[in-house]
């Protein structure tokens, strides 16, 4: 009889350079050799469609039928619609997603966006911080963390052998306005039960200090409101990072209260922001009511293109658009005069603010976007990612060096077992930074590459399996190139990391969803069939 083994494998997300395609797999092999799986996240990785023709990359198909979802950002859940396509007809087991309500809404939006048939939607099990549940023999305890998106979660997964692994998800420690956020006491309480391994988000670990909170952005927005008086404000945010919408609304209310003026109307534009706004309401976050309760001021959030929005005087408008990086979305359409809901040709000055700093590698497009607004005579403020900014209009969702140290310290201090730290979700340099920080706390650390694994026996002894030099990914292409009628093609792709080469793999055949016919088509098909029957009868 063999030994039982608990295993953690990096299925994606620990890339050498890029970030995304997050996926981690837990497995437990019992003494009889029976294996149980549990996946954490199944995200997509950015593919730059203009250059590659691809929608995105995905990690390999998970073996598990259950996925723990840390949060609703696409680099953690963007693979779910494709997973449903790839599983079609291959398994009768239902897919169950264990996630918060807000993550569920984000996933549902991406399922409808990919036109997944409603009958094939996964089962959603709503998780609550501190409320333990069991999946395939694993005990799972979620705990809330702060991130730019509401209701982000970390998990402690305990295998049947009692091996306890903490995975933080994307996190920072600053308080968040919507839902629960990071809670020192809750993390300490969970750590007291013992943590063997701790997987830590390293994305912003190279930034010194703590990551900023939305409260600092709220203060920064006061300056924005002051310098824009008498003018129209056009801004942009990342829609899923919905705390920012609350921050804008609160800043508008606070400013009106402090100056004794009428609050501006916040007007949202862009499909993903409008979808996010409904998701917030569905999850109980009615921002107008929350702001009224917190400030006593009545504010209005309107939708661009509606009569309510059009009736607001120009100098009272605070537009919030999608598309902070200049991608094809509401913001760039405004800059290029292609947005049918927002025109820059107005009888007052226009002040443009990007409420998001530039994503590394996108500097040219980001600057180009700002220039387009300048060329139209707008006053602009686009924060610099690398230098101190005059006004705080953006706060990262990821932990800075001090957040990482803070989290490591709490776990190290409270866990009765020695905890080993494994950095995840970051390029190699950022992951090395987390190792330094954890080592300063007196913890052991391990650098794990994509597709390598950690096996732990029932005595708690860990061994490391090195990854093969080739990484297997899945490419996603929309052959129709039409979001209304997507026709996805999937293929394997091997990344030869040491030699920095990409080797195209094979097409992955999958069963297409049943085609819906329009009534006229159905009528024609029935007539055709009747004709065929008549012909075959005549031939007999």
């Amino acid at each position, binding site marked *: 009889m063999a030994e039982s083994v608990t295993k953690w494998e990096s299925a994606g997300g620990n890339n050498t350079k890029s970030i995304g395609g997050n996926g981690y797999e837990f497995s437990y092999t019992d003494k009889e050799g029976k294996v149980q799986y549990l996946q954490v996240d199944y995200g997509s990785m950015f593919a730059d469609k203009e250059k590659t023709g691809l929608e*995105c990359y995905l990690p390999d198909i998970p073996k598990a039928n259950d996925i723990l979802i840390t949060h609703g950002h696409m680099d953690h859940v963007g693979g779910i619609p494709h997973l449903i396509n790839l599983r079609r007809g291959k398994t009768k087991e239902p897919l169950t997603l264990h996630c918060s309500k807000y993550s569920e809404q984000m996933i549902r939006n991406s399922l409808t966006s990919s036109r997944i048939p409603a009958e094939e939607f996964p089962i959603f099990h709503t998780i609550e911080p501190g409320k333990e549940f069991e999946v395939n023999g694993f005990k799972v305890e979620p705990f809330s963390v702060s991130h730019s998106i509401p209701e982000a979660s970390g998990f402690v997964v305990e295998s049947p052998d009692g091996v306890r692994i903490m995975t933080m998800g994307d996190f920072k420690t600053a308080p968040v306005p919507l839902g629960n956020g990071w809670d020192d006491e809750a993390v300490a309480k969970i750590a007291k039960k013992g943590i063997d391994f701790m997987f830590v988000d390293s994305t912003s670990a190279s930034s010194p200090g703590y990551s900023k909170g939305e409260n600092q952005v709220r203060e920064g927005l006061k300056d924005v409101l002051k310098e824009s008086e008498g003018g129209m404000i056009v801004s942009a945010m990342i829609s899923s990072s919905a705390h920012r919408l609350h921050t804008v609304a609160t800043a508008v209310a606070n400013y009106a209260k402090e100056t004794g003026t009428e609050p501006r109307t916040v007007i949202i534009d862009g499909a993903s922001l409008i979808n996010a706004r409904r998701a917030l309401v569905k999850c109980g976050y009615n921002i107008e009511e929350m702001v009224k309760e917190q400030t006593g001021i009545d504010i209005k959030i309107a939708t661009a293109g509606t009569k309510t929005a059009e009736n607001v005087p120009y100098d009272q408008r605070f537009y919030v658009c999608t598309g902070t990086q200049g991608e*094809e979305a509401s913001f760039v359409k405004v800059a290029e005069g292609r947005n049918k809901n927002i025109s820059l040709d107005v009888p007052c000055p226009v002040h443009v603010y990007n409420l998001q700093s530039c994503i590394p590698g996108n500097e040219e497009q980001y600057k180009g976007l700002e220039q387009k607004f300048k060329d139209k005579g707008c006053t602009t403020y686009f924060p610099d990612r690398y230098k101190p900014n005059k006004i705080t209009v953006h706060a990262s969702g990821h932990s800075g060096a001090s957040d990482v140290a803070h989290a490591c310290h709490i776990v190290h201090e409270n866990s009765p077992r020695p905890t080993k730290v494994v950095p995840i979700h970051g390029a190699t340099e950022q992951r090395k930074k987390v190792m330094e920080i954890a080592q300063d706390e007196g913890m052991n650390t391990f650098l794990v590459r994509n597709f390598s694994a950690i096996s732990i026996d029932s005595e708690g002894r860990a061994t490391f399996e090195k990854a093969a030099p080739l990484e297997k990914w899945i490419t996603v292409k929309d052959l129709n190139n039409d979001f209304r009628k997507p026709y996805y093609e999937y293929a394997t792709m091997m990344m030869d990391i040491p030699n920095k080469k990409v080797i195209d793999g094979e097409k992955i055949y999958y069963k297409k969803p049943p085609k819906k016919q329009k009534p006229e088509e159905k009528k024609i098909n029935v007539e055709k069939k009747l004709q065929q029957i008549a012909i075959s009868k005549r031939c007999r």
Partner: protein
Amino acid sequence: MGLKWTDYAEIAEELAPLYPDMDLADIDYEDLTKKIVALPDFEDSEKCPDENLLDAVYSVMTELVYGKETDEVSSIDQD
């Protein structure tokens, strides 16, 4: 056979051009249900069996009216 509640995308495609002034950020299930049931080729029960299907209709309509945004993943990776 006409449209069923589960045909969320087809329903949205028919509704979007009929109601260009609808506030798509505003959830009004009663109003949306009425509009769907009134579609000429809708052939299902008067009451939607699952609220999530109505949300799916809103979501697709929003994309059709405001345009789909596909590149967000590039922005959130390092947000």
